[in-house]
């Protein structure tokens, strides 16, 4: 199983590679990727330096072109695909049907991975992308139970990559408009969710309130740790009960089921978090590397070590973790 790690910057890329990532994924500095945040991502010189660093360590570089090109800006996405091809990256990660066809026609030798944003959740969907566009790997949305992941892999004509650690999307990736409903900007169109420019913090009488474009996302009691107001992880009122109606702040962590994923035939495990610091990437990569090595050495005797889980929980959203949809009970 390959370990695929996030690189939001050149230092993060080096942190990932130096701590044992088999591949890193990154984006250009614009809306062509789903982490279009200020101060993040790569210019051409940085990518070239990143590729040199990765190749020297035997690691691969993938470029995420995983937003949906709007008609008026179509050429920005095709130009990004052309740049990726010229750079000779190991793969592009693409979601849009039109852009997939463009890549298949114009750059047939550049490997194409299907982004999680394309939300291919069944072998029938995967079959479509493999046949129509020669896609060679699919990243599965975080909506399937472990049993369903097994089923998909058993019938999939191509490699399957799953998320292993990081912030958890509750909604099917690529099919969530909550952010644009509130702020006008969504992952699909702008590469952002709950964008920072729409966030406002208010403090009164010891309590803190977080708002997204005016909508109250959460209220924190004095002393209560406050998190980033990702709108699906706020506390809301449903039938008179105030609760995390959609999901609480938490991170996905699959350490507990690595042997099952290995036996199911998962080709790669992906770490979310291009928006995270190089230090975060270094620590997460180190733990995942150790866990993957232990699991691949002897899956039957593998068990996640307490210190791995403790280290990852410290870095996790809300300092807690979940198997998410992989665990049927979560659903």
């Amino acid at each position, binding site marked *: 199983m390959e370990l695929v790690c996030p690189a939001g910057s050149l230092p993060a890329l080096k942190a990932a590679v130096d701590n044992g990532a088999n591949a890193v994924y990154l984006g250009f500095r614009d809306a062509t990727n789903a982490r279009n945040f200020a101060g993040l991502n790569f210019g051409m010189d940085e990518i070239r330096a990143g590729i040199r660093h990765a190749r020297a360590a035997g690691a691969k570089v993938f470029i995420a072109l995983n937003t949906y090109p709007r008609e008026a800006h179509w050429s920005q996405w095709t130009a990004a695909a052309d740049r990726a091809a010229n750079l000779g990256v190991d793969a592009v990660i693409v979601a849009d049907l039109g852009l997939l066809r463009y890549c298949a026609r114009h750059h047939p030798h550049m490997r194409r991975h299907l982004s999680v944003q394309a939300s291919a*959740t069944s072998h029938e969907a995967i079959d479509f992308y493999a046949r129509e566009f020669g896609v060679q790997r699919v990243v599965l949305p975080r*909506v399937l139970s472990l049993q369903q992941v097994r089923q998909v892999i058993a019938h999939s004509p191509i490699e399957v990559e799953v998320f292993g650690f990081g912030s958890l999307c509750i909604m099917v990736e690529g099919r969530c408009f*909550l952010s644009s409903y509130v702020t006008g900007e969504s992952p699909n169109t702008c590469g952002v969710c709950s964008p920072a420019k729409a966030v406002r913090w208010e403090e009164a009488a010891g309590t803190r309130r977080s708002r997204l474009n005016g909508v109250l996302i959460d209220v924190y009691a004095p002393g209560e740790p406050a998190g980033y107001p990702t709108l699906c992880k706020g506390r809301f009122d*449903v039938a008179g009960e105030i609760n995390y109606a959609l999901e609480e702040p938490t991170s996905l962590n699959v350490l507990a089921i690595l042997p099952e994923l290995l036996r199911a035939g998962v080709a790669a495990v992906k770490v979310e978090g291009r928006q995270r610091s190089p230090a975060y990437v270094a620590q997460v990569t180190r733990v995942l590397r150790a866990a993957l090595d232990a699991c691949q050495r002897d899956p039957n005797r593998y068990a996640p070590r307490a210190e791995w889980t403790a280290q990852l929980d410290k870095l996790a959203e809300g300092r807690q973790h979940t198997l998410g949809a992989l665990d*049927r009970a979560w659903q």
Partner: protein
Amino acid sequence: MKLSLGPILYFWERERVLDFYAQAAGWPVDIVYLGEAVCSKRRALRPDDWLEIAGSLAHAGKEVVLTTLALIEAESELGALRRAVTNGRFPVEANDTAALNMLSAAQGTRFVAGPYLNVYNGETLKLLHELGAGRWVLPAELSRDMLAALQARRPHGMETEVQVFGRLPLALSARCFTARAHHLPKDECEFRCRDYPDGLPLATREGQRFLTINGIQTQSGSTSCLVAELPELRAIGVDVLRLSPQAHSMHEVVQVFREALDDRLAPAAAEERLAVHMPDGACNGYWHGEPGMAWQPHAD
């Protein structure tokens, strides 16, 4: 422009569904979308029941389209999808790539590319047309300007449909939020969504009606309404206007849109007549390139 009734997105009792379509047969709508798009566990009606309703509506002169699941997770759901795609009589609305795969295998089958497929550019539109799509439905978050750009690239013979009334489908999840609100696991949900024929309201802690929970689907809290934008929709060349069913007043909603379409009702007057049927407020922000929840009142 034609009027369509979108599929019922909520879990209504069998009798309520049958009654709804018995009435709809006499309403001035041209197209009716039938079937379950949200949750495969909702089986108040069997596939044959839907085909029977489809038959009566077709007999009443309606164009009937069978909708399909937007999120496919289980092998059994693929089976149901395959049966819908190969029903041999009615076209289907494809809401997932799995449906596209089955339709491309059944070459030449005309279908509708539903609102849950991501269509953001002309290349994608062209590709869907080549696969057999004769109509596409605008995804909820696209604006008037994005639609206009797409219309300029629209393949010949491809119809464009836009939802102009009803809560907006905003997100899908593996998790059932209705079951979660009742502290039940999804596998033992007790079909609680049956108690919410217009979805379960979700408000902020200061009482702002924010979203609507509908099982695994999250919808807008307020009702999208583009009746005042009919002149723009017409000018952009939209062919079909979709009304997404809610539990009450659908006949009146259809009536208002029909009169507005036939120029018997001015846009502002139409908007005023619909206001009472949108008790949780209205939104039209997406159309104007703003946050979807925004509301721009009619300008005259």
